[in-house]
């Protein structure tokens, strides 16, 4: 059962990621990215990370991608245009990426002692996770909240000062998201 679920959702994940590259309109890319993130949530659940699966759906597929689709629609982004032939990126980039992927795959396939994942494996409960997060890692948690506060202020400051009303809409959406 685990194998079947893995194959279905890994396939969805890869299909969504490839579709993101093939589509030329940003809204189609955004929708395929939502497919990728939602299937990743199922994979997290298969690996026993229940809190992260929920957070993946809420934060990534919910908040961040809503923000992306909102900006795509707000800016009325059209189809992609290729003006300068970006030949360098393609001729140098593809072999480099293929080489990196091959190296990583070789290392992974030769790794010793990697276990297996079963459906009967235990699930890391949210209680376990939060007891570590709020005792040992309390300081990083608080620092992250300050980071997000600064990000809200920065987003509002960046999107506001102008004559258009697009900025005020964007900033109010953004503060609501956090």
């Amino acid at each position, binding site marked *: 059962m685990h194998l079947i679920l893995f194959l279905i959702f890994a396939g969805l994940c890869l299909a969504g990621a490839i579709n993101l590259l093939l589509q030329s309109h940003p809204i189609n890319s955004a929708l395929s990215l939502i497919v990728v993130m939602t299937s990743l949530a199922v994979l997290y659940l298969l690996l026993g*990370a229940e809190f992260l699966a929920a957070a993946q759906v809420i934060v990534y597929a919910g908040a961040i991608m809503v923000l992306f689709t909102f900006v795509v629609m707000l800016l009325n*982004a059209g189809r992609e245009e290729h003006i300068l032939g970006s030949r360098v*990126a393609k001729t140098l980039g593809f072999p480099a990426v293929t080489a990196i992927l091959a190296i990583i795959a070789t290392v*992974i396939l030769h790794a010793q002692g990697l276990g297996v994942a*079963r459906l009967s494996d235990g699930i*890391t409960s949210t209680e376990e996770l939060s007891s570590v997060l709020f005792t040992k890692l309390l300081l990083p948690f608080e620092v992250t909240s300050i980071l997000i506060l600064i990000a809200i202020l920065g987003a509002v400051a960046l999107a506001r000062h102008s004559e258009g009303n697009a900025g005020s809409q964007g900033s109010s959406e953004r503060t609501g*998201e956090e």
Partner: protein
Amino acid sequence: MSSLFAREVPLSWYLLLSAALFSLGVVGFLVKRNLITMFMSIELMLNGVNLSFVTFAHQWHAVKGQIFVFFVMMVAAAEAAVGLAIIIAVFRARATLAVDRIDRMKL
């Protein structure tokens, strides 16, 4: 078919999937010429790395790997907010999202 139901998945498959997602993100960043789509490719790379964090947390039965993913998610949320605000500001100044047209620091 019953053997297919009973089988477990080696963790290396999860790691391979995460490497593939990361590489697709890199390819998207290099190939796409739209500012928003390039930004989405960065999110795809972050998701690929998150998957390998969760896989290793499963391997070592450690909670800290999952907590790291949680932090990555929060930083990604902050990054998306600031990045999209910058994209809105750039669009307002240049009226385009094509990175080939945004090649000067000053107007």
